[in-house]
């Protein structure tokens, strides 16, 4: 099955359903915005939690992409920089409705949190000084340590599968903690080293950047993610 990610007509051309009138296109863009707004508004606790809901909406409810395409996009979203939710929404939006769709999708995904945080920030400023708030946050900060450390451990456990990876991990850690190197050179350096060290690894290595289930990762699974249809083995079996 041939994968076509773009159109020869360029960035603005619509992928599918050419020949629809402007009103139809506008309707699609708007509904994209609304759907992604809904997704963005109802997932708490991080991007990975959005994935099952996104899948439900984008594949099942609206049929904008097929499940395979979605998994493909997920893999890309994890490989490229940036929040995974944003990346996936850009891809789906572009795929279905060109540049306008991409913008609508991203706007929809980020707007709910933007508004909520704005509201909190506006009122939180007054709370900050109070002794109660400070006391509560003194309790919260160690919890944050736990969550961040937990994320590090989860990612580390999945990423460090052999000696090379362990060496890179140790190297990066030393660079950051002892040598105070800026994270960006560390990341770039390790990417370069990775190109050298992992060149020969087979494409189907379990450590590879294929789409991974949300439950694998640094998030506790949402209760309603149990009916998620994200199917890792199916994607791996699809060799095109």
């Amino acid at each position, binding site marked *: 099955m041939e*994968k076509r*990610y773009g159109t020869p007509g*360029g960035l603005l051309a619509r992928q599918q359903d050419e020949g629809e009138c402007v009103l139809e296109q506008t309707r699609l863009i708007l509904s994209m915005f609304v759907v992604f707004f809904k997704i963005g*508004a*109802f997932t708490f*606790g*991080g*991007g990975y939690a959005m994935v099952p809901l996104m899948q439900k909406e984008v594949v099942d409810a609206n049929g904008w992409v097929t499940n395979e395409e979605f998994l*493909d996009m997920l893999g890309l979203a994890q*490989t*490229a*920089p*940036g*929040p995974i939710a944003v990346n996936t929404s850009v891809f789906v939006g572009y795929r279905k409705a060109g540049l306008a769709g*991409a913008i609508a999708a991203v706007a929809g*995904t980020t707007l709910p*949190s933007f508004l909520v*945080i*704005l509201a909190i*920030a506006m009122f939180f400023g007054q709370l900050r000084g109070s002794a109660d708030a400070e*006391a*509560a*946050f*003194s*309790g*919260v*900060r*160690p*919890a*944050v*340590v*736990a*969550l961040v*450390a*937990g994320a*590090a451990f989860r*990612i580390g456990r*999945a*990423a460090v599968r052999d000696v090379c990876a362990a060496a*890179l991990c140790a*190297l*990066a*850690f030393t660079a*950051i*903690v002892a040598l105070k190197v*800026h*994270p*960006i050179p560390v*990341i770039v350096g390790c*990417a*370069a080293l*990775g*190109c050298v060290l*992992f*060149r020969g690894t087979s494409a189907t*290595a379990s*450590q590879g*950047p294929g789409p991974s289930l949300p439950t694998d*990762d640094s998030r*506790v699974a949402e209760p309603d993610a149990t009916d998620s249809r994200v199917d890792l083995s199916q994607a791996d079996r699809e060799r095109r």
Partner: protein
Amino acid sequence: MRPTRASTSRRRTGRGDERSMIVLRLFLTFAKIGAFTFGGGYAMIPLMQREIIDTTGWLTMKEFADIIAIAEMTPGPVAVNSATYVGYKLAGVGGAAAATTGVVFPSFVIILAVAALFVRFKDSPLVKAATMGIRPAVAALIAAAALSVAKVAFVDAAGPIITLLVLVAVYRARLHPILAIVLAGMLGLILY
């Protein structure tokens, strides 16, 4: 740092230039952060720490830890939430918009480029190898960030205990992170 509400009137009287500079800097800084956040929202934390605390001093480590907690409890990716909050704190709604747009912008461009240019980005062996190099580094960076937060979070013996409790609760007992934060906050109210 000046309180956000009190500065509103000052901002309107002739501080426009200074504010535009901050807004621009916010956009650029968060674009830089967004461009190198590989492997999930938490990967942004070490970058944010370096840029926003160490280099520019826009936040203290304590405020940073608090923002992470808030970003955890609110809808949306933690990266976007943190950007919005920092942006607002520094330059009001305009700052929030600049920071949020900034953090999203690089990935937007990259994904579009990949999608439009037929690039089989994620399947290229080079990209896979690079990613396998980046992931361990990201784990290390996040671990280092956890240490930095711990430095301000552990004011007494209760700190590590709370951390341990939360670790067990969230990762063994499958307690939802939001609940864990709320409970930890209540614990804080009792203890302090």
